[in-house]
């Protein structure tokens, strides 16, 4: 069976993991209610997209 000859050093380990990171989600603001929302999607707080369209009727 193939076995590593040397123990992976902290440096090697950390170099390998240098690309393991999460990227933050891109956020846009709703032009209607100014709440943060995902870009190109309907606003979940006021239920509008591109101004006039009401997609979901949000009951308070």
């Amino acid at each position, binding site marked *: 069976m193939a076995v590593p000859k040397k123990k992976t050093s902290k440096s090697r380990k950390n170099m390998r993991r240098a690309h393991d990171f999460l990227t933050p989600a891109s956020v846009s603001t709703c032009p209607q209610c100014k709440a943060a929302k995902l870009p*190109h999607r309907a606003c979940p707080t006021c239920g509008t997209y591109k101004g006039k369209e009401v997609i979901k009727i949000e009951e308070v």
Partner: protein
Amino acid sequence: MRHNKSGRRLGRTTSHRVAMFRNMVTSFFNHERITTTDAKAKELRSIADKMITLGKRGDLHAMRLAASYIREKSVVTKLFTTIAPRYTARPGGYTRIVKLGLRPGDNAQLAMIELVEEEFTPKVKKAAPKVKASAAAKAPKKEAAPAVEVIEEVKTKIADPAVACEASAD
């Protein structure tokens, strides 16, 4: 190669997928607005457009073709009598998809698909291509004369084919 591999399989067998879209297009024309996943909405769009094209044809054969796909006869009559006549002026693109966000539970992208409104304003075709427009925009600041020349050139270019046609007819 990707040749002849259009469409999504959606993790279903062909029969399962066809059965699902027959159900979906039936309830889509029944309710005129449904919420589903983004991928399914994008597939449904093409099917619904084809059904409306059948509805615009309006003959008996088209109605039988539509009835062989749509599951309810009442929906077929609705398609042919109320939905298709709305879009006589519209050359395709009868649906609108709006993304809604992520579904709790499986994190799927949800979307709302609906039939677009009846009003239709045809897109105005641009008179000149972009290259000429930008050239005309740059020219007038320095000299007014070159812009006029450009327009005249365009006119002669448009005029030429007609003259050529007449010449060939003679």
